[in-house]
């Protein structure tokens, strides 16, 4: 299919997906709110604790919330648009549904992603958005066009970092079918990025910068937005990191597809 037609095809998939979701309105609401609940438990903890202490090793509550909000927003992009990567093994490879993608004249990865927009991510998106808005107001961040663009680019890059890591790990489904544990192990590292990296041992900071770079999805852009002194490569590195990671992930995906072509299931 011509590259030009992909956006409109995605739009068609999305429209029909929403139509289905609206049919199960109750599920839709519960799904979206349940993620808010889970986030709520963690956030309530942070709030309860931080209202009793002067600071978190030098960080104020709004500062922590900004970091937390940024990672939640990035995660929500992955959650909404690429959640199907989790189910590649269970719902597509194991059942043989992936064969269907292979006999259609569209890119199989596109088909996989377009197949299921995940509404649960909307809850995360809202939580992240509200957190960032509150934190920004408390920190006195002025939303100039420059800041807005910076913010949007960082969140999108963060989303791509999430998607690329999930893509890389979900490819294991072509070998072991049950790819969820592999994906989960890498995905789980984002939990670190909910708090300032400076509270962790140095090794973890390095890990989240150079190996599983969730630091670029929250901590680094957040310090820059707060007006703290941030090295340039940290403040602006996210798009580059995201691009490199995505390129690697796509190569891994193609490798996985080749394997699928030689073994089937």
């Amino acid at each position: 299919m011509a590259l030009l037609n992909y956006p409109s095809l995605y739009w068609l998939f999305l429209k029909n997906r929403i139509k289905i979701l609206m049919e199960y309105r109750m599920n839709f609401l519960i799904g979206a709110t349940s993620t808010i609940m889970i986030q709520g438990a963690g956030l309530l903890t942070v709030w309860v604790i931080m209202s009793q202490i002067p600071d978190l090793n030098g960080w104020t509550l709004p500062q922590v919330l900004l970091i937390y909000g940024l990672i939640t927003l990035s995660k929500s992009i992955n959650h909404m648009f690429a959640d199907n990567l989790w189910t590649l093994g269970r719902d597509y490879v194991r059942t043989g549904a992936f064969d269907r993608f292979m006999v259609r004249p569209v890119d199989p990865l596109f088909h996989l992603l377009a197949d299921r927009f995940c509404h649960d991510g909307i809850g995360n998106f809202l939580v992240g958005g509200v957190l960032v808005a509150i934190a920004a107001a408390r920190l006195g961040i002025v939303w100039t066009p420059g800041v807005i663009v910076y913010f949007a680019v960082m969140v999108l890059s963060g989303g791509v970092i999430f998607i690329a890591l999930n893509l890389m790990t979900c490819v294991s489904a072509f070998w072991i079918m049950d790819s969820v544990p592999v994906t989960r192990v890498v995905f789980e590292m984002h939990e670190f990025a909910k708090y300032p990296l400076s509270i962790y041992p140095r090794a973890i900071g390095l890990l989240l910068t150079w190996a599983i770079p969730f630091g670029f999805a929250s901590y680094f852009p957040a310090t820059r937005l707060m007006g703290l002194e941030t090295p340039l490569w940290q403040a602006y590195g996210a798009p580059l990191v995201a691009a490199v990671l995505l390129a690697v992930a796509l190569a891994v995906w193609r490798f996985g597809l080749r394997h699928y072509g030689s073994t089937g299931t």
Partner: protein
Amino acid sequence: MIEAVNLTKVYHIPDKDPGVRGAVKALFRPRHTSKTAVKDVSFAIEPGEIVGYIGVNGAGKSTTIKMLTGILVPTGGQVRVLGRDPHRERVANARDIGVVFGQRSQLWWDLALRESLTMVGRIYEVDDARFQRLISEFSETLELKELLPIPIRNMSLGQKMRAELAATLIHEPRIVYLDEPTIGLDLLVKERIRAFIKRINQEKGTTVVLTTHDLGDIEELCRRVLIIDNGVLIYDGSLETIKQRFGKYREITFETAADLNGLDVPTGADVLEKGGRTLSLRFDRTQTSASRVSASIMSQIEVIDLSLKEPDLSMVVKQIYQGGLKETA
């Protein structure tokens, strides 16, 4: 149109002991067993043919179909579909083919058929005018009209298969691969599906490759049959030839009063099945007769009931699977 030359597929299945230890061991010292699923299969299918591709489960049918459709890369040999390598030129090939995978639907469970078809149409970039024309055509040939507003989840098996066929043909492919298109359907619906397949073959010249367990499908649709067994193509020829070659055989089944022990099989006949008190024999009509065979059995044991069967395709295929073709060919 479709050309397979010495098509071979070998799977490497990792040997894995169960549990964590097995997984770890497999990681460091992987061992593989090679299994040849398809071996040196060659055939050519001409435009407009309907070819039946039959074999028991695990004989290599679906592996072959997967190589023809571009899902799998052959280990050896060559496939050309419309002059293309179906895996390397996967997208171009996909535009020209349609595939029905047995009971796995390609439609969206919760969407009304009309919407599902629209999505499939868009995936294949069918323009609006053509899409409308085909929908109205299918409305007649597949009686699709009343199905259009129904979600797939609310359809019966037969309705699902009609919907599936419409989705498979919405881009007017030149070749369709049908994997068990009538499985689980009642006779009336089967008839309808077969009539439809015949019709698109005759009207549009669509080439059809059909895998099935239902010999009714074969007898009604195919003039040519490919039979695969253990990965090897054991027969490629007309349906008529098989029938003739096996036409001289009859199957006779006895139900006896006592358990069967140490029975002498009459000359010219051999045992097909031997149960507690039932015995099925196959005999060559040119060498012996039904009366001679039954007399021989009746002289040895009391027979309560007996039945004689004309050769139909199911019997023929059963015999071929059991190595009958090799013996007689």
